[in-house]
């Protein structure tokens, strides 16, 4: 195995590990968005998310402003991780093509 192929393989391995880490981290983060429903003049926070192609709502309970902010941060972090995980997968595909290319060149 040449130097370049070894470096590419090492990076591919790292990206596979990174993908798993992103997926594991996303499991612990909420999915969807927060929506407030007004019932009898009072606002109640709900988590809106897709379940089997349909929009579902889950009541979040009485949350303080800080808890609500933390929950919103969790959603934002999940969205960020989803985007980065997609980048990781894209880089993996590119590296696989590069490894095949190096082999053919040899």
């Amino acid at each position, binding site marked *: 195995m040449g*130097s370049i192929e*070894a470096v590419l393989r090492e990076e591919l391995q*790292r*990206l596979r590990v990174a993908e798993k880490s992103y997926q594991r*981290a996303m499991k612990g983060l909420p999915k969807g968005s927060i929506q407030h429903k007004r019932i009898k003049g009072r606002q109640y926070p709900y988590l809106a998310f897709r379940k089997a192609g349909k929009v579902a709502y889950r009541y979040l309970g009485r949350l303080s402003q800080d808890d609500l902010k933390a929950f919103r941060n969790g959603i934002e972090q999940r969205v960020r*991780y989803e985007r980065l995980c997609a980048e*990781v997968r894209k880089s993996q595909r*590119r590296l696989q093509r590069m490894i095949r290319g190096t082999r053919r060149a040899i």
Partner: protein
Amino acid sequence: MERDAQFDVLLGLLQTFEREGVLQHLMLIGSWCLFFYRSASPKVGEFPAVRTLDADFLIPHQRGLARDVDVPSLLQELGFVPTFYRSSQWVVYDHPELRVEFLAPELGRGSSEAQTVPKLHIKAQRLRYLQLLADYPKRVTYQGVTLRIPEPSAFALHKLIVSGRRTGGAKRRKDLEAAIAVLDYVYAHPRELTMMRTILHRLPKGWLKTLDGLATTHYPVLTGDIRERLRR
């Protein structure tokens, strides 16, 4: 993998660490140093353009750490995700462009477990010979960020010495290439050569003997300086 995107992630990380007062307690080691040596050198082509996707941060010692900073949270805000190694309890931080690792010098009998750094909420992997880098810091400023990297001569000697401990052929080759390129630079600059002789003068004899064996095969010019020190 793209150079600019990768460097932007590293620069963003360095800026965050500097803003939070963490960077002054860390030293950037590994192949990224070549980038900063190259940027500080007026001559083009003195250092190879080889870099790795790992950004290795050395924690020379924990004495100066006074402030409590949640480094994992800072990294997660930048999009990094923790990856756990259960066997050693070590944690690294992955990003599509970069992996961040924290390292600490392994002293005495050593330990297979990672070293906890409570003030920074991180775990650092202990590795041999890192004290060689920690003892010879060099300050560089790049795009407004001041960071510590090892002196080029310490970097070269460290790369040479660890190349002898590598089992993987590709990594060993990469270490040797980096060591030889920086040694060429050291021998071309009197100030760097004086620094390297000072370092050699302070190294334990066991390390010098290891270096002598490696230099004989890979960089014979260096053996003269090592043997002179060994004779004393």
